[in-house]
Each structure stands twice: as C-alpha cells, then as structure tokens.
C-alpha cells in the first residue's frame, strides 16, 4: 500500500508541477461550464412557457432536463480528455529511461500500475469535484433530487476509471505519447459506439455488443439508475486494462 502511494505521490507531483493538470482541468471546467449555462438557460425559457400551461409544468424536471444531458456531455469530454491525462504515464518513463530505476527497485509492477492509476483517478476526482460547484447553484436556486445527481457523478467517476485503465494499457505499449493518446481515444470511442452495431445484430451477439459498449451502461447512470451490472462492468473494465498493462510490461522484460 505504501509503495502504491509512493508512485501515486510522484505522479501527482508531475501532474501539478507541469501544466498538464491545470490545462486539462481548466479546459474541462470551461466546457462543462458552457454546457451547464446553455442547459440552464434552455430550462429557464422552458419554465417560462410552462408557467402558462399547468399540464406542461408537471413535466418539468431539472434532473432530467439539465443534469441528464449535462452528464452525457461531461462523459464525452472525458472521453476526449482522459487519454491526454494518461498518455505519458508509461510512455514517458520508457522514453527517458526511468523505467529502469522503477524496475530495479524493491517494488512490484502491480504496485507501479496501481500507483499511476490512483494518481490519475485523483486528478479525475478533482475535475469532477470542481464541477460540483455548478450543481450547488441548482440546489441553492431550485430543488433537484440529490440522489440521481450523486449517482450521475458516481457513474462518471467509475467510467473515468475504466478510461484511465485503458489509457494506461496503451501508454505501456509505446514510447510515444501521441501514439498512446490516439490509440486510447480510438479504443474508447470504439467501445462507446459499439452498441450501434448491436442494432443490426441479433440474439446473443446483440446482448454481448450492448453489454460491452460504454453507452448502454452510462445511459443508466444519467437516468439515475444505479445497477450493480454497470458497477461490475466498470470494475471489470478497469481490472482488464490494468491486467493487460501488467502483461505488456512483464512480457517486454521476458523477451
């Protein structure tokens, strides 16, 4: 546990002594802020109209009309930005030769991977935590339900964790950060839209494609549904990503 923290601390220091974390967080918050503003503005105009129509007024729901789309937007921004957060994790160690220092220290490959994973996860938590400020305004000036909002954040966090694990894997494959980022982004997008293929498939394969796709699972989170299937899905994705990373690093040494 201590070993994991040693690595995580080092990675966090790198994130925050270089511009990486600040740039990613700032751009993320700007984009989320913009989406939030647009959604609130739209909700506001809808509310004005609903004020004249009692039937329509009953349909107004800030959770569904603001937070649902907001979480969807945030998940796409994460899909675009997390590969940039993870691309350097192993690629850089290999490029500058520090991998040799890590591998000749009394610390296991698994601990190194978990340390790096933890550091990225904490940056992700900070990114999501800061957007919590926006949600706070809706609670001050309105009365949304808190459970679906927290559930949405949980979904984003778990999915982000799965994204990071995939990013770790691609970072371990190459010395080139750009290559790592592109491969990660491609893989994540592919898994995201895999359910499109499910539409033309049938039976068993339809279920498989739907299950493997991120889209289906995240859809539940935005609607306030907390399903253990989804949690297991994200966990197994994260585990699988780290397992592959471990295999890549070990196999390179054994070649």
């Amino acid at each position, binding site marked *: 546990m201590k070993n994991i923290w040693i690595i995580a601390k*080092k990675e966090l220091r*790198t994130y925050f002594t270089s511009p990486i974390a600040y740039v990613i967080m700032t751009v993320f918050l700007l984009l989320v802020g913009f989406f939030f503003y647009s959604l609130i503005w739209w909700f506001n105009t809808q509310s004005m109209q609903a004020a004249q129509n009692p039937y329509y007024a009953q349909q107004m729901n800030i959770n569904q009309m603001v937070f649902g789309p907001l979480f969807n937007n945030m998940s796409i921004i994460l899909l675009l930005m997390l590969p940039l957060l993870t691309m350097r994790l192993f690629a850089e160690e290999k490029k500058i030769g520090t991998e040799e*220092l890590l591998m000749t220290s009394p610390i296991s490959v698994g601990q190194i991977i978990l340390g790096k994973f933890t550091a990225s996860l904490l940056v992700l938590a900070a990114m999501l935590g800061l957007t919590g400020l926006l949600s706070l305004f809706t609670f001050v000036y309105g009365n949304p339900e808190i459970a679906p909002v927290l559930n949405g954040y949980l979904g984003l966090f778990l999915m982000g964790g799965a994204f990071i694990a995939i990013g770790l894997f691609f970072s371990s494959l190459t010395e080139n950060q750009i290559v790592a980022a592109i491969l990660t982004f491609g893989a994540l997008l592919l898994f995201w839209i895999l359910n499109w293929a499910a539409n033309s498939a049938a039976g068993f394969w339809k279920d498989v494609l739907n299950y493997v796709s991120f889209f289906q699972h995240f859809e539940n989170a935005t609607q306030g549904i907390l399903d253990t299937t989804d949690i297991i899905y994200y966990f197994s994705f994260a585990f699988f990503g780290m397992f592959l990373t471990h295999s890549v690093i070990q196999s390179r*040494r054994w070649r």
Partner: protein
Amino acid sequence: MIAVEHLVKNYGDLVAVRDLSFEVGQGLIWGLLGPNAAGKTTTMRILTGYLPATDGRASVGGFDVFEQPNEVKKILGYLPEVLPLYPDQTVTEFLNFVADLKKVPAAKKKGAVARAIKISGLEPVKGRLIRNISRGFKQRVGIAQALVHDPQVLILDEPTIGLDPAQIIEIRSLIKSLQGEHTIILSTHILAEVTQTCDGVVIINEGRLMVSGTLEEVTASVRTRDGVVLKVRRAAEAAVAALKALPGVEKVDRADGELRVEWKVGLDLREAAAKLAVETNCGLLEMRPLAMTIEDIYLKIVSGGVEP
C-alpha cells in the same frame, strides 16, 4: 558478494551473453571491460533484476537474483547507462523519491538524502530542477540515486561517459572513495579507468568471458614474456648482439634510444642484462621492467590473441 554462474541471455536469435561466470569479493571494485556490444549492459541488467536471464544463475549478497529479486534490489544501487532522471523534479525531490522507492525508513530519509548529496558533491545544485543542471551534475545525481540507500553493492554502467576530463577524474576518485564499504562493479571501455580504480577485471567479448581476476592475475595469465627496457645513451650494435646472445633472450628491439629486451617467462635475466649493458659500454641511463599494461592485455584478448 557477487557470483555469476554460466549466465546466458538471448534476445531472440541474438546471443548477448554466453556462458559467463565470474565472482567478485566483498569490498572490491571490479571492472567489466569489453568493446561495445560485448554484453556488459546486459550482464548488469541481469544482475540488477531488470532482465531475466535465459539460463544460468546469478546471486548478489547471497540472494539469488531470480528467486529473491526483492532482497537483491534492497541491497543494490544501480546507475543505468541511460540516466534515470525526472527532468521536472529538483535534485532533492528526486533523491527523496528514490529513498522512498528503495525503502529507506522515514526517520533516516533526511539523513540519507543529505549524505548522498554530500558524497556526490551536489550541494550547489540541490534545489535546482534536474533539467537545468549540467551533464556532469546529472551524472552525479545518477550516482547519488544509486547511493542514497547506502547499498552493499553498487552497479555502475559507464559511470564516466560523456564527462570532461576533470569530471572524469572527480567521478573516479568518488568511486575510489566508496571502496571498502561497498562492493562495486563498473563497466567501461576506457582502459585507464580499470587500472586507476579497479582491483580486478572481467573482460568479455561477444558475450563470452575472456579473462577474469585481479589485475595482477590477469596480467600474469596473459604475459608470455618477461623483460626489461634499457634506456641507453649509445645503442651500439655490439650491445644488441650481446644481449641477443644471452641464453633465453627471445627478442631485442631498438627504438628511440631504448632497448627492449624480452625473454621467456620464468627466467630472470635482469642482472645479466644490466651487466652486459655496462660491459658493452653503451651508457646505461635507466632500466625498468617491461610491464604489460591493461591496454596490451585488452587488445591482445579482444583481437583474439588469447583463447578464453
């Protein structure tokens, strides 16, 4: 302290190390010598547990490198060929990180880092970012990170590469000062480095052991002739002829006012040679033993003059 037995390492079809065996005793500095691509770095990487061997055994401090890698890694400091430095950290930050990695207890960490900084002469740059310090200081940071946990065994891969002559001398005296407390293996292809800093040498070529032992042993094993060099004022033909006529003398060369007299190993013709020089009245100025330098040995071995 360090033992390597029948070590083999293949990279696919390429054989980097073949059947390498040698031993290094405690507290000694041993040089690993060989031309480029001889397998020096591979051997060191196997010893540090970075690479697994294809076959054979290696042990450091009594621990098997393959069976107990973590025990080995705890007592070992390693300076790889490519310096493992994080450019965005300051020297002190980096050494603190390495101290954590190498399991230096929290209570001793501050002292250990201060000690490493002092030994390696990093005091003037300890607060600066590694990316901004000179190559010579970076090399010292590399040595400091190998030393920070006060390991019993140090493995240094080309510790003086890329340094200017003054820095090379400083690093060598630094290594020399570590003798006794630490067992050290250093790789190099600079021959002078071995004579100046090492107690013994392992010479490898194309992954094969050519010779190993203390400097004296190695010199003795390769030497085929003993002899003296006579510095004379007048190198007369008569003197050369007389020396050649001595029983056992195999060769007399004349160059730059010096006579190089060689005879079979085991004989001692020094007295007779001196006497002859005086008798032939060639004006003897100086007489010194014909020493075989590490350069001679190395060239002889690597160019294939000696069978392993």
